[in-house]
């Protein structure tokens, strides 16, 4: 029986500064033992606890897709004690990963459907995973149109620029990336995510939408979808709450009877409408 509190040992393979303010860094992690890599079976939308001995653990969404191989990608905002320590670590350092945790986006259930993805700020992490998974030759054929709407404050705050440029160029998905205001050197869309979503006007027929972003973005995007005729059960969101165990025991991440770490983090809007707004 495996002790699911004990992290798998990993080493940092590569560190990349993602944003101009240097608040976000990406970490590619490599398992030290290949058995652990095989045991770590995940799907897009799940997260893991990143463990730094002496500092603690933080839940972080998995930004890589299982279709990319066995290494794991995480993009981490510098907030408090553990994330700051992680920002000071470098390639070759040893740390731990515990997971995969939580449920995932209902991609298998959405076979045959159009997929709309709306992301704001660094909440795009698990949606990067989703896009890579959907666009993989093994899966692309199972889905209809794929629309990816993503916004950040400035061009320098956009994550994964190489990746979404490639998706754009592949012609496999409609990619709409926007920044809040005009900026030198930026020739793409300008405007807030809700406005751009309104312009793109994704159709609700035979579709699901995955929406992740700061509360303010969600608040203004929601009415756009309502106006376009989307139903609550087509809208899927990923929640964040303070976590410790990540496996539904320690009690702090609940939203009503649901544990964000175990029953979530992915919920439909229909589910959330019946729950307290404790997130």
């Amino acid at each position, binding site marked *: *029986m*495996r*002790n*699911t*509190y*004990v*992290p798998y*040992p990993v080493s940092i393979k590569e560190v990349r500064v993602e944003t101009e303010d240097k608040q976000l860094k990406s970490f590619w992690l490599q398992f*030290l033992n290949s058995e652990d890599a095989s045991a770590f079976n995940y799907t897009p939308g799940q997260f893991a606890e990143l*463990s730094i*001995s*002496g*500092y*603690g*653990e933080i839940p972080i969404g998995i930004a890589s897709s299982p279709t990319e191989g066995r290494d794991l990608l995480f993009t981490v905002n510098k*907030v*408090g004690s553990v*994330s700051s320590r992680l920002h000071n670590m470098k390639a070759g*350092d*040893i*740390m*731990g990963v515990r997971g995969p*945790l939580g449920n995932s986006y209902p991609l298998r259930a959405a076979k045959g459907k159009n997929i709309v993805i709306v992301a704001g700020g660094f909440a795009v992490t698990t949606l990067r995973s989703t896009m890579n998974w959907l666009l993989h030759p093994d899966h692309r054929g199972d889905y209809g149109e794929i629309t990816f709407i993503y916004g950040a404050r400035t061009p320098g705050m956009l994550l994964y620029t190489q990746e979404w440029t490639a998706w754009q160029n592949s012609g496999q998905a409609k990619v709409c990336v926007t920044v809040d205001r005009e900026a030198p050197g930026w020739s793409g869309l300008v405007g807030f995510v809700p406005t751009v979503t309104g312009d793109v006007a994704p159709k609700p027929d035979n579709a699901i939408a995955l929406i992740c972003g700061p509360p303010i973005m969600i608040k203004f995007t929601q009415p756009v979808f309502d106006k376009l005729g989307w139903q609550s059960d087509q809208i899927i969101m990923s929640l*964040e*709450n*303070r976590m*410790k*165990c990540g*496996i*539904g*025991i*320690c*009690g*702090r*991440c*609940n*939203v*009503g*009877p649901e544990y964000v770490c*175990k029953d979530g983090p992915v919920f439909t809007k229909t589910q959330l409408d*019946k*729950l*307290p*707004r*404790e*997130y």
Partner: protein
Amino acid sequence: MSQKILAKNKLDAFLQGLCRDQDLFAPVMKDGKVGWAPVATADQALWDFSNTEMSPKDFFFPQTECMMRFKNVQGDPQGMIMQAEPALNRPRVLLNIRPCDAKAFQVLDLIFVQDEMTNDLYWRDKREKTTLIGLACNDPCPTCFCTTVGSNPHGTTGLDVLLVDLGDKFLAQALTAKGEALVGDLPAAAGGDEAKAAELKKAAEGKISGGVAMDKVNSREVMELYDAPLWDRVMESCLNCGTCTFCCPTCHCFDIQDETQGQDGRRVRNWDYCMSWLFTMHGTGHNPRGTKKDRVRQRFMHKFKYIPVKRGGEIGCVGCGRCVRLCPVNIDVRQVVNDMNA
């Protein structure tokens, strides 16, 4: 399973048998308080008491528990790899545990062990290596309300053996194979003994005075209870302290912390409680349960609505009455639940 007789003058021999290969614990009187301690002879243990002040949950879920260790040594990156703490090396017996507390652990089993991932080996190891010999309550105290939350003063749930004090002797009911092994050699009970026990049980049930009604709590939707006006009053005097959750046999929330002292590092878990504002605080400063009302509501909703919804109707309270006795501002769970049910 079998019904045996344990004579009161044979208790020492029985206890000797129990502690031969195991650690034996029982409620004792310490500094005027009833608490758990190791015992070896019958007169060290209490046989006539209401219940221990604190619940025995720390036998399975210690308030501070080292989960794993690491070495923080320059030039040895491998030392940073976490190593789990070893399992319990000796089995244990808890003697004279009350039926409500035993029931509580069975509720907690549903939470600590759910599937391959939610599989708390620290909890599980200690549970599997511990035998529970219960002592039925013939005299429930005025704050007990077990019968109204699915437990019973003579309840057998979660126990390996139940002892019923018949006056001059105990009726010992084996309830599991583990229990059978402990009492199998005792003389068999006569029909009259079992009848006497049944009478005592009935009398004990009759002594439970107050209680809670749950029918409307069960039928109402989560949001209806959540938005009910009662929380504005319930929370007023609450101190948001840890008393009610720390004394409670079913509260199981914890925090995980890393500690380093020189080269020795460890990851420990400590009891935590939903009444604390820190419990849910995000690193960004946002707090989903930012007010006292949110936190007080969480405690009662969790026990009486959320757990039942998620765990097939099991209630997160066994009616032991500890929080009623110990809350510094007398927030009485029975009143709160009855208000939820009003």
